[in-house]
Every structure is written in structure tokens, then in C-alpha cells.
């Protein structure tokens, strides 16, 4: 965690410094007699500086911890809130045991399909068609590891098809016809 904090801290230092330097180059409108405190770059410059400083503090803190041989930093979820132990320490029994690569695969599938749908298909294909293809393919890919035999496969494909069809029909109907909202 400290190693990640060190890298992220340095990213913020660089980003904050870039913002501040960009802000310094913004016009000050002195030629029209503008008050220097109204310059458009004033606030972004200050904010960039603060962000770079906070990033530096984070990076230094992580570097000191790494030097001292500590590897784990503050927990991602709070462990104590107002004196109450906030750790949900018991793994819910509803969780299904699965190999670690399963969640990475799901994440990658969703990420790639989302980009293909929202950044590529939307605006190029009719919305209902893009939606239908996205939902059908994504649901199928996400459920692929759970396909068991021909009958189960057929049932799951039929469910994916039904969901995709329903969403491709319902979203345009509800948004465009009932609530009069424009779709991409």
C-alpha cells in the first residue's frame, strides 16, 4: 500500500505542478486595467499548488514508511468510527468461493464491454440495437463460467436474450415516450 501511495503521491505532485504552471500562463487582462486578483488563473493556481503539496506529503509519508520497513498502510475501509469497531470482519456466508482470477475476468469483461458500448456503439448504432447487443453479449460472457451442459447453456442464453430484448425495448420506451428524454 505504501508503494502505491508513493507512486500516487508523486502523480499528484506532477499533476498539481502542471496545473499551477498552466494557471500561471493564463491571461491577467492587465491591458484592460483588470484587478490582478480577478485573474482567471488565480484560483486554479492556488489549488494546483495545494494538490502538489498534499501529494508531496503523501509521497514523503509513504517513503518514510517504506524506509522503516512497513508495507501496509491505513486500511481502505475505516476500522473505527467514533469509537465504534466498524470492521465487518465476518465474510458473509452468501459469498460463493471462487478462484482469484474469476473476479479479474469479470472486471475485464465489464470494462471492455462498457467501453465498446458507451464509447464506440453509442452514437454509431441505433440505440436499441447497441443496447441489445451490449446486454446480450455482456450477460453471456459474465455467465459463461457457470454454463453447465447443453440444457443449462440454452436456458442461460435464453435468459440473456430475454433481458437484452426487454432492456432494448423498455429503456427507449420509458425515456423517450413517457418522460420525453432524448436518447443518444
Amino acid at each position, binding site marked *: 500500500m505504501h508503494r502505491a501511495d508513493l507512486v500516487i503521491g508523486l502523480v499528484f505532485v506532477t499533476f498539481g505542478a502542471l496545473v499551477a504552471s498552466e494557471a500561471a500562463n493564463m491571461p491577467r487582462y492587465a491591458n484592460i486595467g483588470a484587478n490582478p486578483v480577478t485573474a*482567471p488563473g*488565480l484560483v486554479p493556481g492556488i489549488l494546483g499548488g495545494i494538490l502538489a503539496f498534499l501529494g508531496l506529503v503523501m509521497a514523503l509519508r509513504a517513503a518514510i514508511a517504506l524506509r522503516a520497513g512497513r508495507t501496509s498502510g491505513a486500511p481502505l475501509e475505516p476500522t473505527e468510527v467514533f469509537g465504534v469497531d466498524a470492521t465487518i470482519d465476518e465474510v458473509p456466508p*452468501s459469498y460463493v468461493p471462487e478462484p482469484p482470477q474469476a473476479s479479474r475476468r*469479470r472486471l475485464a469483461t465489464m470494462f471492455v464491454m462498457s467501453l465498446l458500448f458507451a464509447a464506440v456503439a453509442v452514437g454509431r448504432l441505433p440505440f436499441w440495437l447497441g443496447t441489445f447487443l*451490449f446486454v446480450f453479449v455482456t450477460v453471456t460472457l459474465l455467465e459463461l463460467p457457470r454454463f453447465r451442459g447443453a440444457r443449462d447453456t440454452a436456458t442461460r442464453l435464453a*435468459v*440473456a436474450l430475454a433481458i437484452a430484448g426487454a432492456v432494448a425495448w423498455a429503456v427507449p420506451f420509458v425515456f423517450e415516450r413517457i418522460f420525453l428524454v432524448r436518447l443518444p
Partner: protein
Amino acid sequence: MEGLAYFFTAIVDFIDPSSLWNILWATLLGIIVGMLPGLTATLGVALMTTLTFGLPPDEAILILVCMYVGAIYGGSRSAILLNIPGTPANAATTLDGYPLARRGEAGHAMGIATAGSVLGSFIGMIMLATIAPLLAEAALRFQSFEFFWLAVFGIIISGRLTALDDPLKGWIAGFLGLLVAMVGQEAIYSYPRFAYGDTNLAGGFGLLPVLVGLFGFAEVLTVMKQPLAAVIKTATDSVIPNVREVLRYWKTIIRSGVTGTLMGLIPGVGEDMGAWASYAIARGASKEKEKFGKGSIEGLMAAEAGNNSAVPGAIIPVLTLAVPGSAPAAVLLAAMFIHGIRPGPLIMITNPSFVYEVTAMVFMASASILLYGLLLTKPLLMVLRVPPSRLMPIILVLCTVGSFAIASRLFDVWVMLAFGIAGFILRQYGFPMAPLILGVVLGPILDSNLRRGLVLSSGSLEPFLTRPISMVLWITIALTILLGIPPVQRFLGAAIRHVTRRRAPDAGS
């Protein structure tokens, strides 16, 4: 008295078929959104904002308030049954809700959660109606100097309270949000900052696409990364709360309702902290401390009263200062602007009935959650059986539509994707999202008021530091920052221990 008249007039106005229909479906949808882990109240209100874009303002705001109240309540279902909070606001609910469910008292726990949520909402509602006019009147004395500090105060407090173990990350998230708000034309010269000749960037990032990205797409990716939940428990016992049992804890309910509302009032802190603070105070004051964390009815009631009372609490600064008390309240604020409602210190002068109309909306939404809690709890649990693999693609479609609909720009869809990816990465490394969103909302307020204040003071910082309200705000900010620094915390902790150790022998002698 005038306020009461406005309130009852609004209630009477809502008792017509169209409004009742809107209240019922929006609250039900809110409960479903809240129940499903991965769907938050913020996302629900953001998507609903785009759906209600074409409706008259009063109908649209009514739907959004019902969605908000419903979602915070709905999150208790999965917290109790699965030990997974449906929304972050229900994390404290798991502590006693889940042990009760394990003892076979899931229905009992959900009944208590319903009672706590409804009563908490009512207390918050009363405080909304009483505090909002007073705060609006006080805010009339605010000038640029105070509004500047208020924006900084929001970022610092929100960053501190939403990242308790590492406030530095909360503050970085907040300042990042402020920087996001700097993109696009500024208010004085219309200079397009960080636009690089791009007309889309010159228009700035819309709040809704940013929100939908951070709370929608980022959440979809987070759910995909988590292990799958398959076995869903259900309730076999009665979900009707026992009135005598509820009345036994009346002090806890009032205390939690007041605490939740006050936590909601603090900019960017919101319902989750409302629940935690109420829970901690209830535990401290309880005669049955040993039961907390093991299925305490009092603890469950405190957590649910705390988070639901924080909803009207978070609406108070929205109406009176145009500063959101929580992330869903930030969307509500954006929706009000979209519909031409101008919240802020002048609200009690320009639109005095509106505060009481919103109070009446909270009342109607609370009445609906009582109705659903009593009648539909068990059928609604079916929703928890929908696997994320079938639900998340649909959510992504709604996120795409939601980010596009307001301005009809494909650019907003890309903004949603970019912020979703950034939000997902930041969350993986412990950066909270609430200060980031608050930063996006408060950025323009901070920018224009700092520059305007400096013009008024001819470049002097003195009024920023010496005006009474400004002084209170900057001293609070400075103390919050100081107390967030680990060496200072360690020094204070050692000093307190030293003093208490010295006092103990004195007391003994």
C-alpha cells in the same frame, strides 16, 4: 404558524392521484435501488434526475426526494440479510442487524429498521422545517468572505470525516474535485480554462455525468471485482414492528434523529456518518452496552434513525446555502438548478413555501416507506436474488442514458466513462468519493467568492480572517487539519492520558 400552513397546503396538494402515484413508484424504486449492493442513493437520484428532466419542477423534486429517502431505507435490507450494506449509509446497520438475522430474527430486525427509519425521518423533517428558515436568515449576513470559507470548510470537514483513517486522502479527493470544477469558462471574464480550444471542454464538466461516472460506472466495476453472492437468506418471522418495543427506546430514537440531522447538515458528510454518530452516541448512553454489536435492538434503531434523519438534514444546507450535505443531496441541488429553482440564503424571501414543500415531500416519502415496510418487505426481498451479472449491464445502459440526457452531448458519455475509471482506481487506493463530488459542487462558489472578496477588500486578506463568521470557520478548519495530523493526534492522546492518569490517583486519595 405560516410555515405550518405552507406544510399542510403542500400535503393537501400531494393528495391527488398523480402525486400519490409518483410518491409510491419513486419510493418503491428507491427502496429497490438501496437494497441492491452496488447501487447507491446518489446513483438513483442522479439517474432519476435525467428521467424527470421534462417534468414540472415540483413533480421532479418530489420524485427525487422519494427516491433519496427510499434508497437510504432500502439499504437496511441487504445489511440485515447479507451483512452487506445496500448503501454506505447502512454500514452501521450490519453491526446489529445481521446478528439478529442469524438468530432467526430477520423479520424482527427489518421491522425495527422500518420503525427507526420512519421515526428518524420524521425528526429530521421537523428539524428541516425549523432550522432551514433560521439558517437562511443567518446566511443573509454571509458575504463573499464567508462563502469562500464555507466552501473550504466543506472540503476539509468532508475529507476528514469520510476518510477517518487517512484524512489526507479525503483532502486530496476534495481538492481534486475543486480542480475538476475549474475546467471550462470562468464567471468573470468567460475565459475557458484548461479547454485547449475544445468547445466541449470550454463548457466544463457537467455535475451529473461526473456523478454518474463516480457512483455508477465506478460502482459497476467495483461490484464486478467483488466475490459473487448467491445464497440469499429470507425472513420467516413477522416484519411488523412491536410498538411497545419501539416506544421503549424513545429517547434513543429522538437522540439519534437529532444527531443524524446535525451530521447531515455538515457539508459533504451525509447519511453514513449520521448513522455512525447516532450509533456511537446510543451505545455510550445505553444501559445495555454489552448487547451492541451482538444484535441490539437499540443499536439497530439508532443506526437507522440516524441515517434516515440525515436525509432531511443534508437537504437543509442545500435549500439555505446551496451547499450539499451529502452526495445524493449534491444531485438534488443540481436538479433544483436544472429545474430553475434557486436555493440559497434568499430562499425564504423569493420562495418561502418551497422549504415546507420539501418538508412535506420528506413526510410523504417516510409514510410510503412505512407502508412498504409493513406490506411489501418479504416480496421485495426477491430483488436480492437478481445476480450482478444480469443487473450490472443494465445499470451501465442507464448510466449512459443518464449522462447523455441532460445536455444531449456524447461528450458527457465520455466524461462519465473517464470519471468512472478514475473513481474506480481512486477507490481501490482508499480515496473517498464524497469530498470529490463536494469539490465539484463547491468549486465555482470558492472561485467566484475568493476573487470577489479580494476585489472588495482591495487585495487584503484581513476581512477573510477577522469577520466573526469567517473567523469561526477558518479556526474550525485549522483545528480540523491540525487534529488530522498523526503526530499532533499522538501528542494530544499522550497529553490526555497523562492528565487522566494524574487525576486517577488524586481521585483515589
